[in-house]
């Protein structure tokens, strides 16, 4: 049974929350961490409720509502909610830990603890929609989002669900940023958005975001793409990337030269971008090459932005200049492959086709 991506929603460091535009104007930064462009939450969430919500829940609500509206999906049509998140509502977790330490385990309130539960976003969305179906949350670094997509695909293919809300979300918070600076996972020097790939330095530019999609076994007029396959691997040597990608494509009956657009998770980390080079310089040197983390920043579910981008390219049939790595022409992209990894671990391959 085919799996369709019928709608998309994004809250990111770019103006992606408006589905009517497509990276025509990008927001340029010169920094080492990027916050989301805050949507007008009042348009989506009653202010009284928003005050109690963690940022991750708010971003997710906006992103999920955007996707639901675009597909014309009624809340009671959703059979399952599946979320990927590296760290959940980490802002609340950090606050709860610092409150424990600062107050010697006294005077604590439960809200921060409750919102710290990794599945709080999926749970809150289910609660808000009254959705009593399958409700899973995946928390595995750079493949958190892909795990959620894989789960949704299985449910749809087995006829266990017809419409699923799938998303990825992560927050950017101080302690996390400060500690990751200590170990060099964040770049020391600010880099200008369009120069990220040329930085030549170690570490990435950290960010945050929420990307939600409706996946269905039924194609709707709003359809963006068909999800052909998704695969994740915990480890992979740089010299194995090409071979694994070939076998992934062949398992799905696709020749490498049938891939029109390759989306690569380059984040400008001189230490690990070589993984992407192995595909860009050989297997897909004649394909349209696209990157996105200079726009979205790096976070555990940044590949949700890559997935958003792949869908958008297939529906709009255009490739924004800001994401192009080469000048290969394409009139009508049909097949998009996304390859992502983080620090040489948690590799994912996702294959999309025009619907």
């Amino acid at each position, binding site marked *: 049974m085919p799996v369709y991506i019928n709608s998309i929603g994004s809250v990111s460091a770019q103006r992606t929350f408006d589905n009517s535009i497509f990276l025509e104007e990008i927001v340029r930064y010169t920094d080492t961490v990027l916050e989301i462009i805050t949507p007008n939450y009042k348009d989506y969430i009653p202010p009284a409720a928003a005050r109690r919500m963690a940022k991750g829940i708010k971003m997710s609500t906006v992103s999920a509502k955007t996707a639901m509206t675009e597909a014309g999906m009624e809340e009671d049509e959703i059979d399952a909610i599946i979320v990927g998140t590296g760290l959940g509502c980490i802002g609340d977790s950090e606050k709860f830990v610092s409150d424990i330490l600062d107050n010697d385990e006294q005077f604590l309130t439960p809200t921060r603890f409750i919102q710290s539960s990794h599945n709080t976003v999926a749970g809150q969305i289910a609660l808000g929609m009254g959705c009593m179906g399958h409700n899973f949350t995946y928390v595995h670094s750079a493949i958190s989002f892909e795990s959620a997509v894989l789960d949704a695909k299985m449910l749809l293919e087995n006829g266990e669900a017809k419409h699923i809300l799938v998303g990825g979300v992560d927050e950017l918070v101080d302690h996390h940023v400060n*500690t990751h600076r200590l170990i060099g996972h964040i770049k020391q020097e600010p880099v200008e958005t369009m120069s990220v790939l040329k930085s030549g330095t170690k570490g990435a530019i950290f960010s945050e975001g929420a990307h939600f999609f409706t996946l269905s076994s039924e194609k709707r007029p709003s359809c963006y793409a068909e999800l052909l396959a998704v695969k994740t691997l915990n480890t992979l040597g740089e010299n194995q990337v090409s071979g694994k990608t070939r076998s992934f494509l062949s398992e799905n009956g696709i020749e490498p030269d049938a891939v029109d657009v390759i989306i690569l998770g380059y984040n400008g980390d001189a230490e690990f971008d070589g993984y992407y080079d192995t595909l860009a310089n050989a297997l897909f040197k004649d394909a349209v090459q696209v990157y996105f983390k200079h726009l979205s920043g790096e976070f555990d579910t940044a590949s949700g932005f890559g997935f958003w981008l792949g869908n958008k390219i297939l529906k709009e049939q255009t490739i924004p200049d800001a994401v192009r790595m080469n000048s290969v022409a394409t009139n009508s992209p049909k097949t998009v492959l996304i390859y992502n990894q983080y620090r040489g671990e948690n590799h994912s391959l996702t294959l999309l086709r025009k619907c």
Partner: protein
Amino acid sequence: MGIISAIGNNVAENYASLIAGKKGISRISQIDTVHKDDIMVGEIADTNAVLEKQLGFAENEVSRTVLIGCIAANEAILNAGITDINDARTGMISGTTVGGMDKSEQYFYDYFDRPEVRQHITGLHAGDSTKKIAAHLGLEESFVTTISTACSSAANAIMLGARMIKSGQLDRAIVGGTDCLSKFTINGFKTLLILSDTYSSPFDEERKGLNLGEAAAYLVLESDALVQKEAKKVLGYVTGYGNANDAYHQTASSEHGDGAVLAMGKALKTAGLQPSDIDYVNAHGTATPNNDLSEGRALIRLFGKNVPEFSSTKASTGHTLAAAGGVEAVYSVLALQNDTIFPNLNYKTPMTEFDLEPITEVTKKPLRHVLSNSFGFGGNCSTLIFSKDKSLA
């Protein structure tokens, strides 16, 4: 399968403790918390130093969640007779809620001045514990992921493993969960006012809340084809599974257990079984006023007047959070293997709301199908059904 909990460091010790009615509940000794005199916990006896030595980790290299996870996963691999973990399409799916929080909370402020503890910074990622356990097992180029749905995490990991084998994506899945005790969870549950100050007593009218515990438990699931190819002895079958959301409250269960009824119903449907086929229910039974009432009502809604024999083993182990579904999966398989129902300790007074009474003594009975419940925050309700023989389902 493999397990480490407050009542034993392996499957045999856990079984012996269950049969002996041994409680693993005590005052906390390994975490310095101001609440140490107010709470009772299910703590694993071995210290990190002992576990590190046993596993060959350097001192303070990894979180306790990883250490106990490796102990249980090693036993599971050994018990399944696996010599080369990469000889089939093997995946690992682990459930955890705290991950490396034990170290994160300890070094939260120290990271800035003490480079020697910075190995724990990335441990805050829940998935980091799974990554390290998979690496310890030598699992490479494989499907490895982590589920965090609070106290149903391991049950959901088992469910995903079964589904991935069924859909032909994996030949073998190492599934379960691991969670160590931490100040984070102790204080979190303390703020929710659901920690008992004495031994927890599931399904008792006078129940005062739960005892937190720590544990890790993994099972090795294999496809029919792999079992046949290697002529392996099968311990039991995962025949039914279902996950549903209560969609009622972030932390509390609905009054009549709507999500639980749905999850149990889905599991029966997957297994192709009738309620009357279930011989024993290993209940979630946390001993909080809310859970036991909601779960008991759900059992009555599903089974009517014929609620099967049931017990909660959490009075023995404590509530091991994300690992609970794994721990109780191991116990469900042990129940099937030994045709034995394990006692619900500390039970005295029936609840006024219904006339359900758990099994309080070790009870011998032929068991074909055991149903195990795990419910978590965010309204997450999961049910697994384990069967002695697949052809019965």
